């Protein structure tokens, strides 16, 4: 099943590796790792962390291909005729539009949409403590909403179980990318990325310029065929002389409807300072009454709304992809990790080997950071209702595939998104001086140790079944 994708743990490696982790020679050999390599979300990074993309980005080449092919056919087959018969401005305008479209598209795809880094273990502990003092029982899961007042209007903040924090307003968790994104608009498969606070303006300029480009090409091709059919004997002959124009016509005709519609829709959103997410959910559309639930973020002025959304200051990326993981985390993390291993072993042996992968994954999604809770069954119910709008069924294969890919690479790569707070809670408190995301800390120990530790924490039944 999924077991074959994991490498079997060598019990000797468990005892040997802590010693090797403390070997200073090995520490020096390890090159400094950047934070993007330990990123917990489902993203891909290029150019050493400078460019970020969603993991499922198969449609982006299609988008690029369509644009490039259509424009290429236009320049190659229609422009010579039009330059000759009309004006040389046509390819110039076409060229400028094409460059603008491609630049906007690439910018949208490769920019961090406004991903929020996950909460550190200390923050999670603090939130839990606050909830426990206000609530009564200790095993109740954290309440899922918190109500606050924004501009005299009540807004509910939801608790994100994956990122372990109360989501700021207008933030939503993208289940495809497994990240909380600020001012989340939607996940666009055409662009291969989420559209959020930081790349919405690029997305908007992409669709606007693409509307202009497709309309322009469409108009030019129609003009071309009309002129040609007047020059030669009829439209059929014109088409025979320039077959590429028909291809362009078809592509443009079908794109124009959707692109123009999308541009119009987003222009409306920009003018009213809404996101697609809010519009679809009807958050501010007056469910209770016309006056009460207006949009609290609007400036009530179309121009100000447009300026705020499109020309506002550019916030920086919060995830610090290119920062280095502190190397001196390796020794304390390794030292405490080795102490973690023995306690996990008997617990996992006893409980985990009889459970299915799905149960373990579900439990891990909801086990609090106090550690692996084999008995945490009450927590699976919130998962079904709430977490990131992804059903557990869909979470399982994507997680397993993500995990298996990472483990199969045999490198100290980013652990599975679910892993960090669960397995290393105790070491986190000791390392709280640095207090970075525990996900980053996991990447520091020596490869063999973290590899076995990853397998241990991640899928105990998966990791231990081969041993039985």
């Amino acid at each position, binding site marked *: 099943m999924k077991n074959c994708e994991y490498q079997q743990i060598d019990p000797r490696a468990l005892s040997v590796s802590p010693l090797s982790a403390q070997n200073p020679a090995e520490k020096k050999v390890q090159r400094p790792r950047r934070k993007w390599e330990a990123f917990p979300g489902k993203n891909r990074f290029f150019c050493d962390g400078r460019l970020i993309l969603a993991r499922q980005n198969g449609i982006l080449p299609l988008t690029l291909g369509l644009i490039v092919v259509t424009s290429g056919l236009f320049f190659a087959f229609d422009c010579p005729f039009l330059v000759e018969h009309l004006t040389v401005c046509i390819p110039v305008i076409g060229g400028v539009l094409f*460059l*603008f479209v491609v*630049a906007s598209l690439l*910018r949208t795809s490769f920019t961090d949409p406004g991903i*929020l*880094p996950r*909460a*550190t273990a*200390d*923050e999670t502990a*603090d939130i839990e403590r606050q909830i426990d003092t206000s609530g009564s029982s200790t095993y109740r899961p954290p309440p899922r909403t918190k109500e*606050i*007042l*924004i*501009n005299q209007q009540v*807004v509910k*903040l939801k608790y994100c179980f994956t990122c372990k*924090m109360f989501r*700021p*307003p*207008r933030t939503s968790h993208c289940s495809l990318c497994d990240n909380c994104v*600020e*001012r989340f608009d939607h996940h666009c498969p055409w662009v291969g990325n989420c559209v959020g606070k930081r790349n919405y*303006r*690029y997305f908007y*300029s992409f669709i606007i310029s693409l509307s202009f480009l497709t309309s322009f090409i469409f108009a030019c091709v129609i003009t071309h065929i009309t002129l040609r059919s007047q020059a030669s004997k009829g439209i059929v002959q014109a088409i025979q002389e320039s077959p590429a124009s028909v291809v362009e016509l078809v592509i443009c005709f079908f794109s124009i409807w959707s692109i123009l519609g999308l541009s119009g829709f987003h222009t409306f959103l920009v003018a009213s300072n809404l996101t697609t997410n809010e519009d679809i959910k009807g958050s501010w559309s007056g469910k209770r009454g016309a006056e009460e639930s207006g949009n*609290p*973020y609007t400036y009530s002025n179309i121009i*100000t709304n447009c*300026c*705020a959304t*499109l*020309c*506002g*200051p*550019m*916030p*920086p990326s*919060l*995830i*610090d992809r290119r920062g280095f993981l502190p190397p001196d985390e390796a020794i*304390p993390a390794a030292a405490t990790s080795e102490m973690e291993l023995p306690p996990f072993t008997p617990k996992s042996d006893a409980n985990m080997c009889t459970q299915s992968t799905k149960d373990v994954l579900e439990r891990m999604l909801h086990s609090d950071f106090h550690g692996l809770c084999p008995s945490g069954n009450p927590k699976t119910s919130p998962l079904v209702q709430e977490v990131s709008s992804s059903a557990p069924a869909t979470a399982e294969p994507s997680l397993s595939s993500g995990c298996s890919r990472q483990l199969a690479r045999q490198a100290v790569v980013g652990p599975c998104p679910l892993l960090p707070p669960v397995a290393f809670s105790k070491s986190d*408190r*000791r*390392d*709280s*001086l640095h*207090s*970075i995301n525990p996900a980053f800390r996991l990447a520091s120990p020596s490869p063999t140790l973290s590899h076995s530790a990853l397998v241990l924490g991640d899928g105990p039944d998966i990791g231990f079944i081969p041993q039985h």
Partner: protein
Amino acid sequence: MAETHSLQDMRQQAAVAAKVFIQRDYSNGTMCQFQTKFPSELETKIDKQQFEETIRTLNNLYAEAEKLGSQSFIEGCLACLTAYTVFLCMETHYEKVLKKIAKYIQEQNDKIYAPRGLLLTDPIERGLRVIEITIYEDRSFSR
């Protein structure tokens, strides 16, 4: 070896003390502002006025960074016209203010917080979610 051991010891003892998290204040929208409410854990450590002054200055700096002024508008238009390549050579206004904030926090730590056994963490390192204040125990240093 003994030195490393005692340093770790101190770290461990110091880390065990406490951490206070100042959460975001969303009453004015999604702008980055922090709550100025004085946390009870700091009552014995620092003066309430000084703490509020720090938080208020930070809030003002973040407001300046996110301000919808003519400067950000011109910057946005220029960036759009140059296909955003201008940011290869120029820093955005936001980044400039973030540097100012980092310097301010360091200065506050050196002058006010560190002598009292406290440490402010720059919120940008926590994704602008919280201001983390680490409280160190005094007894580890006196031993």
